[in-house]
């Protein structure tokens, strides 16, 4: 009776397997964690890591399948499964696994088993995966909210520190504010194109002649969508929440927000802008240009005046967002390798930031509050190995050659130069130099300054594991970028990262040769 006039859609469950695994893991963890007696945080962490790894494996299988079939959209065009979404999913699940490991070393006596924290990490990853694979703006909005609502709670989850709740409320109010703008943008774009599907919007904008004129409603809609996205990627001038929230949140959550949050937001932004609004590129590219230049400079300059390492890293994450926006701007010319370089940057940044926060969490101690620059002084004497690893990661963030960070920064700047955006490339290089000062300042504090604090610094095995993985990734990708660039090359369909790779290999060989010959 009820379904007489309704045709139920065909749902290809196998295509959204990583999503189902994450959802199943979250539900199972919530249920069994409550019901089984003697369940502790090790069990929760094990389940969460297993779920994350299972989702990575499912995505990797999907990646392999995509050699034979072209990426396409499923479930009434709501979800698109292509190389782009699969690579972003793998990155998000990797961030989840590292985030869970970091969460396990974070000490919180008021929240002993931390079951909810692990569940919320799983659900926020779920939201992120929905965002990067959504082909419908409403689905994308739902993913955005699942990600954001979980992150609001995680931010406010440390009940010992009042800053944590303050950060949670600030994030919540400003995040809700930005979501409302984003949603209004969806409504207005829908009003013009009568479609909320990203590919539908693309079709409508390219076939419907009536919208090739400067329709005010469409322009306002695009503007509002960009406000919402700029807030999520913390682009200047929508970055005011970032330092406060990153400082107030528990350190593992900050690491997760900085990595997974950025991947999800950029994944959504790239798909909306490059696919949905491709025809309107002349309207939105100047906005991205201004956002990118402002973001790299404000992020780098404001980081210099900070005294708290967590705050420095949050401003540095703003400046990294600016570099990614430079990649988006280059991608908007649809002829270079902007998209590939942005994806590379996201993958590399995710790993580097996780490793950096493994050190921050270890130094911050049980109260999670010793995060000023003062607390990092003399780390080189207290724990030389940790200080050395942290230095490598900070050099990577600064973009020093032979670290993964160099590949990331080199990629976006080169892709900007390739499409003749010289102004933005120069701005990026100047900002990178200013930004380097911040990282060097932390390195100098660790190695050259003495501290009265001579207590034994306890670094748990899990922190060592995350740190080792991340430093290994940084150096391996730094010396052999082909591994990552080949994968990203497949995302973009064309051999457009080949240029970066060849250029880099040429530089590497020249430098190594000079070094070996002693000249």
């Amino acid at each position, binding site marked *: 009776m009820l379904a007489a006039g309704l045709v139920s859609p065909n749902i290809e469950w196998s295509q959204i397997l990583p999503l189902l695994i994450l959802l199943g893991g979250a539900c199972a963890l919530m249920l069994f964690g409550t019901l089984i007696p003697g369940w502790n945080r090790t069990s929760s962490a094990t389940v969460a890591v297993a779920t994350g790894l299972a989702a990575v494996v499912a995505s990797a299988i999907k990646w392999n399948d995509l050699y034979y079939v072209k990426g396409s959209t499923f479930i009434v065009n709501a979800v698109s499964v292509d190389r782009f979404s699969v690579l972003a999913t793998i990155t998000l699940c990797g961030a989840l696994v590292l985030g869970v490991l970091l969460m396990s070393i974070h000490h919180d006596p008021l929240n002993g088993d931390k079951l909810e924290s692990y569940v919320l990490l799983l659900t926020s990853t779920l939201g992120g995966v929905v965002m990067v694979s959504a082909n419908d703006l409403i689905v994308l909005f739902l993913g955005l909210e699942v990600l954001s609502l979980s992150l609001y709670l995680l931010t406010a989850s440390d009940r010992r520190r009042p800053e944590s*709740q303050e950060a949670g409320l600030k994030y919540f109010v400003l995040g809700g504010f930005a979501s409302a703008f984003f949603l209004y943008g969806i409504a207005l774009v829908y009003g013009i194109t*009568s479609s909320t599907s990203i590919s539908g919007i693309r079709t409508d904008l390219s076939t419907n002649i009536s919208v090739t004129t400067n329709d005010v409603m469409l322009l306002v809609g695009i503007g509002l969508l960009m406000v919402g996205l700029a807030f999520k990627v913390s682009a200047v001038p929508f970055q005011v929440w970032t330092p406060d929230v990153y400082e107030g949140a528990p350190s593992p959550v900050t690491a997760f927000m900085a990595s997974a949050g950025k991947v999800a937001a950029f994944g959504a932004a790239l798909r909306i802008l490059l696919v949905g609004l491709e025809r309107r590129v002349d309207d939105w590219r100047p906005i991205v240009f201004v956002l990118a230049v402002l973001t790299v400079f404000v992020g780098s300059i404001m980081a210099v005046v900070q005294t708290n390492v967590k705050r420095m890293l949050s401003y540095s994450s703003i400046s990294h967002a600016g570099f990614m926006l430079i990649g988006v701007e280059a991608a908007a010319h649809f002829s270079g390798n902007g998209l590939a370089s942005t994806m590379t940057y996201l993958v590399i940044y995710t790993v580097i930031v996780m490793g950096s926060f493994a050190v921050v969490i270890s130094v911050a101690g049980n109260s999670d509050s010793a995060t000023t620059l003062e607390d990092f002084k003399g780390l080189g004497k207290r724990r030389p190995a940790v200080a050395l690893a942290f230095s490598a990661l900070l050099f990577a963030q600064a973009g020093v050659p032979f670290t993964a960070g160099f590949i990331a920064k080199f990629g976006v700047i080169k892709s900007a130069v390739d499409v003749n955006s010289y102004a933005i490339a120069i701005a990026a290089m100047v900002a990178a130099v200013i930004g380097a000062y911040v990282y060097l300042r932390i390195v100098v504090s660790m190695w050259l300054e003495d501290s009265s604090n001579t207590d034994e610094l306890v670094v748990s095995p899990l922190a060592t594991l995350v740190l080792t993985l991340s430093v290994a990734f940084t150096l391996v990708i730094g010396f052999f970028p082909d591994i990552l660039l080949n994968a990203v090359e497949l995302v973009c369909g064309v051999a457009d990262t080949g240029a970066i790779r060849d250029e880099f290999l040429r530089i590497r060989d020249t430098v190594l040769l000079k070094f070996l010959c002693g000249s």
Partner: protein
Amino acid sequence: MFSAVQPTETWYLILAAVLFGIGTVGVMVRRNPLVMFMCIELMLNAVNLSFVALATKTGDINGQTAVFFVMVVAAAEVVVGLGIIVAIMRRRTGATADDLSALKG
């Protein structure tokens, strides 16, 4: 006399824009977290009104179904937001956004 004037979709769109504007100004001007929160809900409902008006204008059903999703999201936001506000209230009395100023720099 007045029955001759039929409200069109544009009227509703203008009303929605005005409501959205009131919500936006409210979030920026008011200092009580609960009121700021109510203003965000007002913004979301203004968007709902636009969705329905635009769906009627274009004769497409998707805009009307979108409203249900937005309502669900708004309800979930209430749960999370009130949870955070309650957690803060247990530490201190009186809720003003200006009191929350430990984080700056």
